[in-house]
């Protein structure tokens, strides 16, 4: 049977991996190519690369770094940030990515999801959703977390999958970088409502957070960044502990 996936995420800004808290106060965390190779060798199940300021600064993704990273890893590789056209996607896939992650461009123009899925197949199209908790649910924000959209996360996730998204990458901005644990309720709500895999993101601080997000949050995959970059948790020991907790993983 399919197993749960552990996904390190490289948030890249101007060619360096960075990490902030709640999407601000960015700290340097290393070279993307070296980190990618390290995670590939550590037993990561997949790698996500996000050019976190491409959309905000309205520029194209740094394609040569994507290409260099792709040469180092032999696990699935998802790339996102500032993707606005079928042509952008083609370039990223040719550079060695397997999937692309759409965020702002999908919110602004949901038809783009359908267009991309028709050309490349749904398996290739991830829709990333950045969520902020409100009194009556969660709101979608865009442009690297800077612009509220008025959209409800649950209805947007459903709409995105109907449009052709093959996977949802769901980030809680409230939890991101805080290391206080994932937003379990958010992830469970979305995971139970859509028919595609949901990748939980934002807030991982310790091994138990992963156990919880798989068990209670019903996540198909869990993504983390600073926790792995700063070596607070090794992927190998995380996987051992998940196995002890009867969570199926690739060993």
């Amino acid at each position, binding site marked *: 049977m399919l197993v749960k996936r552990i996904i390190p995420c490289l948030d890249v800004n101007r060619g360096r991996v960075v990490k902030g808290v709640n999407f601000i106060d960015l700290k340097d965390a290393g070279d993307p190519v070296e980190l990618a190779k390290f995670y590939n060798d550590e037993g990561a199940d997949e790698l996500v690369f996000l050019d976190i300021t491409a959309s905000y600064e309205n520029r194209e993704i740094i394609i040569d770094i994507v290409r260099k990273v792709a040469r180092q890893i032999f*696990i699935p590789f998802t790339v996102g940030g500032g993707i606005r056209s079928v042509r952008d996607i083609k370039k990223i896939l040719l550079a060695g990515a397997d999937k692309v992650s759409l965020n702002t461009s999908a919110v602004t123009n949901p038809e783009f999801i359908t267009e991309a899925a028709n050309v490349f197949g749904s398996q290739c199209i991830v829709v990333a959703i950045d969520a902020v908790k409100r009194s009556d649910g969660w709101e979608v924000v865009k442009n690297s977390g800077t612009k509220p959209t008025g959209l409800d996360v649950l209805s947007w996730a459903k709409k995105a999958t109907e449009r052709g998204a093959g996977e949802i990458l769901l980030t809680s901005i409230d939890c991101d970088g805080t290391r206080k644990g994932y937003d379990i309720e958010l992830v469970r709500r979305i995971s139970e409502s859509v028919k595609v895999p949901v990748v939980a993101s934002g807030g991982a601080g310790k091994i138990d957070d992963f156990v919880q997000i798989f068990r209670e949050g019903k996540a198909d995959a869990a993504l983390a960044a600073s926790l792995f970059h700063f070596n607070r948790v090794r992927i190998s020991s995380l996987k051992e502990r998940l196995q002890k907790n009867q969570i199926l993983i*690739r060993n």
Partner: protein
Amino acid sequence: MMVIIDYGLGNIGSITNALAKLGIKAQLSSKSQDIFKADAIIFPGDGAAEQAMANLKKRNLINSIKEIILSGKPFLGICLGMQILLSFSEEGNVECLDVIKGKVIRFKSDLKIPQIGWNQVQRVQNTALKINNLFKDIPDRSYFYFINGYYCLTDEKEIVVAETNYGQIFCSVFMKKNVIGVQFHPEKSGVAGLNFLKNFTDFAYANNSGN
């Protein structure tokens, strides 16, 4: 030289990267003359069967692929490249290459479709030497990376080499003489996948010895 058939579908960049990592020389091509000159062929593919068959037709590759397979050249079909070797695909109801008898059908399980992720490959045959060689340094039930909503249901039961369970058991590897089909993506399956590609290359060059 290994030739990867480029017909406008599939993550050929990833396969090229994996072969480069193994030190295996490979050429991307959509030309029949290159395919006929190859020592071995990798036939990748992602996306829909209908589109794949249309692309092959547009590039005049359908007969070349059938001929090269008949000639005995080692041939590895990956994912959609495995599926369109069968007679027919339910995905778009399209006639396929008919190299392997059977059809491609959609999962009927209640699980999320397509399956996306790591799943175990369990061998159902372990007597033939060439099959054992294909799985050299790969423990039984190793995890490989899958992305598929459809799977191969072949009438030639004796060619099924390994199976996988996704709410139902399906054929994840078949081998018929020189033709190997894998439903998973070896180029994205970490060490197990790289070993598989290396074993295929060894099989290919052992087959070509004397050339």
